[in-house]
C-alpha cells in the first residue's frame, strides 16, 4: 500500500460516513435503506448529513420491518441496484436471517452463477454499552457460517472506511459489523481515496514472543495488553484479520510460526464462535512451531446482563489477556 500523503484524524463513525458518501457519489446504483437513517442519521448519528446530500430517494427511511427491507434489498440487488441495508443493532439481524441466509447468500450459487446479489448488510456488535441482552450481542459468527456471504469486521477508522468501500463495490452480499463502542474512537485516515482488499489481515503491532489475534473492539484490548506486556519484556504481535470471510490464513499462520504462542480474542460468545475457528486453523497449520496450545478468549456464554459490573465481567479485558499471555510465556 502506498504511503498516504495527507492524513487527518477522524472518528470511526465519520470514516463509515465518508465511505458511504464517496461510494454514493461514485455510483448512482448505491442507495441505503433502514430505520431512522435519513434525518435522524441513525441512533448513533453515524449517517448524519447523507440525506441532505443524497435525498430521501437514496437514503430511505423504512418502517420497523427488518425482514421486509432486508428482503427488498436482496430484490433490488438482483435487479441492478447496489443497496446498503442498515440493521440498526446486530441483535436485529435475527429478524432478517431468512433473507440473509436463505436468499442473499444462496441466490448466486442456486442460479448456477447467473444472478448476483451485490449488497451490504451493515450492522453492529459489541457489549458494555449498558443496553441489555437484546442490544449488545456479537453475532458475527452466525453469518460466517454461511457460504456465499462475506464478513468484514473493522477495528479502526482507517479500516472501517477502506473495508466499507470495498464491501459496497463487491458483487456479493457482504455483512459488515461495526462495534458501537468504537464509533467515537479516533484514528488517522488519508484524505485521498483508498480501499482495503478483503482477505488481507493487518499487523497492528509487531512482536516476537506471542501473537494476539484480535477482532473489532478486541484489537484495542490486545494493543493495550501488548503495551503492558512490553514492560514485562514480553513482545506481543497484534494481528487483526479485518475480514473473517475471506480469512487471511497465511498472515495468521505466519505470525503464529514466528512467535510460537497465540491467543485469539473476539467479543462473540466463547463457545462455537470465531475463536474456535481461528484457533483450530492456526493450530492445524502451525502445529510444529507452537510452544503452547492456542488459547481462546471470548464473551462468556451468558446473555449479556444489564448491571454494569455483571456486563463488564462477560467480555475479555486487558488484564485477562495479560494474564493468559503471561501464562503462555511461562511468566506466572
Amino acid at each position: 500500500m502506498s504511503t498516504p500523503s495527507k492524513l487527518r484524524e477522524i472518528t470511526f463513525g465519520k470514516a463509515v460516513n465518508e465511505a458511504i458518501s464517496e461510494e454514493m457519489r461514485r455510483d448512482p446504483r448505491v442507495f441505503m435503506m433502514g430505520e431512522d437513517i435519513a434525518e435522524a442519521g441513525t441512533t448513533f448519528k453515524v449517517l448524519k448529513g447523507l440525506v441532505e446530500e443524497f435525498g430521501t430517494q437514496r437514503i430511505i427511511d423504512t418502517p420497523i420491518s427488518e425482514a421486509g427491507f432486508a428482503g427488498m434489498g436482496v430484490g433490488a440487488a438482483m435487479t441492478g441496484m447496489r443497496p446498503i441495508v442498515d440493521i440498526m443493532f446486530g441483535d436485529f439481524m435475527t429478524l432478517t436471517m431468512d433473507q440473509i441466509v436463505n436468499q442473499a447468500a444462496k441466490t448466486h450459487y442456486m442460479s448456477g452463477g447467473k444472478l448476483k446479489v451485490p449488497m451490504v448488510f451493515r450492522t453492529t456488535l459489541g457489549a458494555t454499552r449498558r443496553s441489555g441482552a437484546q442490544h449488545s450481542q456479537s453475532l458475527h459468527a452466525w453469518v460466517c457460517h454461511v457460504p456465499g456471504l462475506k464478513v468484514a469486521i473493522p477495528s479502526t477508522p482507517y479500516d472501517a472506511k477502506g473495508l466499507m468501500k470495498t464491501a459496497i463495490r463487491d458483487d456479493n452480499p457482504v455483512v459488515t459489523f461495526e462495534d458501537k463502542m468504537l464509533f467515537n474512537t479516533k484514528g488517522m485516515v488519508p484524505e485521498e481515496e483508498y480501499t482495503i482488499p478483503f482477505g488481507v489481515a493487518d499487523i497492528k503491532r509487531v512482536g516476537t514472543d506471542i501473537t494476539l489475534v484480535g477482532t473489532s473492539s478486541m484489537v484495542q484490548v490486545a494493543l493495550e495488553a501488548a503495551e503492558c506486556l512490553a514492560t514485562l519484556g514480553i513482545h506481543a504481535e497484534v494481528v487483526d484479520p479485518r475480514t473473517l470471510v475471506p480469512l487471511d490464513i497465511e498472515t495468521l499462520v505466519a505470525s503464529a510460526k514466528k512467535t510460537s504462542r497465540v491467543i485469539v480474542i473476539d467479543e462473540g460468545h466463547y463457545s462455537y464462535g470465531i475463536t474456535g475457528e481461528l484457533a483450530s486453523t492456526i493450530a492445524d497449520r502451525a502445529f510444529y512451531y507452537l510452544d503452547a496450545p492456542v488459547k481462546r478468549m471470548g464473551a462468556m456464554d451468558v446473555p449479556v446482563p444489564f448491571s454494569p459490573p455483571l456486563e463488564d465481567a462477560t467480555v475479555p479485558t486487558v488484564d485477562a489477556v495479560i494474564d493468559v499471555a503471561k501464562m503462555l510465556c511461562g511468566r506466572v
Partner: protein
Amino acid sequence: MTNPNDPEPLLHFYQQMYKIRAFDEQVNQLYLRALMPGLAHLYIGEEAVAVGVCEALRQDDYITSTHRGHGHCLAKGASFDRMFAELLGKQAGYCRGKGGSMHIADQERNNLGANAIVGGSAGIATGAALSIKMRGSDQVAVCFFGEGALGEGLLYEVMNMAQLWSLPVIYVCENNLYNEYTHYSETVAGTFLGRPRAFGIHAVEVDGQDVQAVNNMAAELVQRARTGKGPSFLLCHTYRYSGHHVGDIDRSYYRSKEEETLWTTERDPLKNLAQMMIKKKMVDAPIFEQIQTEIRKEVDAAIQFAINAPYPDVSEVDQDVYA
C-alpha cells in the same frame, strides 16, 4: 382491443397451459420411474393462473415464483429441455443443476427464481419493484405465492412498504385451498382480501380456472403498475389436482375424492376453455388434439435430452459460491 372472436390468442393460452400440464405430468412419471432425484411440487390444475398473468407481462417484467414453480417458469417462456435438465440435476439445466425443481431461475426472462421458503420471495419481488422505480423503468414485478404464504409476516411487511412507496408490484395469491395438507380455513382468520386492503392496496379476486378472466384482470393490474398507480393484489381461486408433492398420494385425511373429481371434471381450465371455443364455433375440436400431440412430442424430446445430458463435473461443486 383484441377481437373476441379471434381464436388465436385463446389457442395460445391453451397451448401455454397445456405445456405446463404436459410438463408436470411427465415430472410425475419421472418421479414414479425413479429417474428424478428428490421430489417435486406439481402445478397441474393451476395453469390458468400462471398463463393468465404471464401473458399480460413483457419479457423484461420480473416474476418471483414458489416451490410449486414449474408453471410460472414455463409461462414466462422457459424451455422444456433446460427445465427437465435442471430437474434431473444436469449441467444443461437453467442453474447448471445447482438449483433443482424448487430453485429454477431464468435470468434471460427476468424470472428471479423459484423459492423454497414459503413467502420467501415477497421481499425480492417488492425489492425488484423498488429497483424499477429507482431506475425510472416501466417494468413491473409479479410475486406469485400460495395462500399458505398468508401465514408469513414478511408478506405484510413488504406490502406495507409497497403501498407506502407506490411500487409497481402485483401480489398474485394462488389459493389452491391447501397449505400443504391443511385446508386454509384452519389457517386463515378473517378474509383474504381484507389483508391487502388493510394497507390500502387495490385488491381483486378472480376465477383462477378461467384463463381469460385471469388475463383480463392481470392486464388491468399490470397497466396500473406500469403507469405509476402502485401495487395490487390478485386473489386467484384455483385447485391443486395432485398432492402437495409427487409422493403425496393418500390424501383422504385432508380432502375428499369427490372434491377432487368436482374440480378435475367441472373446473378444469383446459377443458373449459376448449369447450367454450368449440361451443362458440371458434375452432374445430381436433385442433386441441393436434396441439396436445405436438407439445407431448416436444416434452418427450426434452426428457430424452435431459436424461442423456451429462451431470456437471464434480469440480463445479465449489464454483459460483461467490461472484
